[in-house]
């Protein structure tokens, strides 16, 4: 088993954090994993993206040639990556920002109004966690508890309220699909 997921959006949407949390929880869940961010000038202004590979044996290339999943946070990202998604794969898109629909017909598209949902629970910034809820459910290999544990570890000293906020945001995303 080897599942690759590309996360893409513009700087400030917490894209790299999404990828890291997936890789971390995959590690905790006992899988092999690699995480590869974009880096350097590209992050500036333009779009940021990262790739997480999760598998049960040694992972050769951390790069996503044909990712099973794409998590798209804005339109340029959907544009940039929808064509490389593996046939039968999944595109989870942030429908609050992305107005168009994916061109690909051979993939499942899950539209999550992440910003609205986050706004509802009073924290626009949590939109990325909402998306993670949907992704983790869809991937169905990482127990939600393990993921939330990872989030806690990653956020380290963050105060309870923030953690609670993530818990809720994750739940909303998880239950949305």
């Amino acid at each position, binding site marked *: 088993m080897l599942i690759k997921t590309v996360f893409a959006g513009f700087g400030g949407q917490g894209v790299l954090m999404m990828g*890291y949390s997936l*890789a*971390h929880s995959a*590690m905790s869940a006992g899988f092999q*994993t*690699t*995480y*590869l*961010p974009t*880096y*350097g*000038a590209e992050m500036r202004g333009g779009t940021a993206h990262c790739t997480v590979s999760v598998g049960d044996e*040694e*992972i*050769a*290339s*951390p*790069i996503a*040639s044909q990712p099973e999943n794409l998590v798209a946070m804005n339109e340029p990202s959907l544009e940039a990556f929808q064509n490389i998604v593996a046939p039968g794969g999944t595109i989870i898109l942030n429908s609050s920002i992305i107005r168009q629909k994916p061109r690909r017909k051979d993939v499942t598209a899950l539209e999550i109004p992440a910003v609205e949902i986050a706004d509802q629970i009073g924290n626009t910034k949590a939109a990325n966690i909402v998306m993670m809820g949907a992704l983790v459910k869809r991937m169905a290999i990482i127990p939600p508890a393990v993921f939330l544990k990872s989030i806690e570890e990653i956020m380290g000293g963050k105060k309870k309220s923030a953690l609670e906020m993530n818990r809720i945001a994750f739940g909303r995303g998880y239950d949305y699909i």
Partner: protein
Amino acid sequence: MNKVLIQGNNIIAEAAIRAGCTFYAGYPITPQNEIPEYMSEHLEKRGGIFIQAESEVSAINMVAGAAAAGARAMTSSSSPGMSLKQEGISSMAACEIPALIVNVMRGGPGLGNIRPSQGDYFQATRGGGHGDYRVIVLAPATCQEMADLTMDAFDLADRYRSPVMILADGMMGQMMEPVVFKEPKPRSYDLKYAMRGAGTGKSKIIRGLILDPYEMEENNWRLIRKYACITDNETRWESYLTDDANYVVVAYGTAARVTKGAIKRLRAAGLKVGLFRPISLWPFPSPALRSLAEKIKSFFVFEMSAGQMVEDVQLALGGAADVAFYGRPGGVVPTPAELADAIIRQYR
């Protein structure tokens, strides 16, 4: 033995500190910035010295000074910055100053780009600097190796009183994999060459200048003998699925990772392909490769460059087997599928 998920560049920095590195000087350049950044946050807290130098030229000479004073010292940079360090590296080799130099390669030549590349192989293994010298060059292919080889590098530097280079690339520097930091060897070397003030004893001189050419030649031969001894004792490589292979790919670092992916595909398609992965680029594991050539007659060199290590493969094989080459210069990391296709095109 707890696993942590951290990034290649940070792994190098953390491993260095654990190995007793107490001096870092460097200058920012992508894709290795996390090394100086990590050092600036952690090194002084843990008793070391961090200096952001005004340039790579200054950084390499700071490292030379610190190491000459007896510290375990290191610098890091990426391709263009490495070019600026060449005079300093040549000088350190001449003065036999041990230190770690990390090159996280990017696409070149010139300013190029910041993508993963292997275009600096010649510079690293042939001495981009002037004169007859060599530095030990180690090429990690996993985050775990980033940790292990960094620690080994300091040990080798001390053992041979020589600069040692970690030759990684943007992908190795930026990616994360779970790693476990091993216990570093204690530093058990005689540092009597170190500049620490003469005290009441004889004064020490560290210098590369030897005006008399015959003395200089003698000194050069002494260094060459040292290099020969390194060549005899320090070659490292990995053989992967070579026992039953008809074809063997020779690749290092990131290219070797991609190759493993390609091999899975090829073997699934019934093509018996193996991998020979040099870990020490200098000294190049020629004997090991040469002995493989006793049963394997077709070697396929894959580099993320226009072809540099391929010369070492040809020199090692000396015509004993045929050598094909596939290169992707300029910062491109091909997919395992692309590589597999290239291999099939070559041998079908």
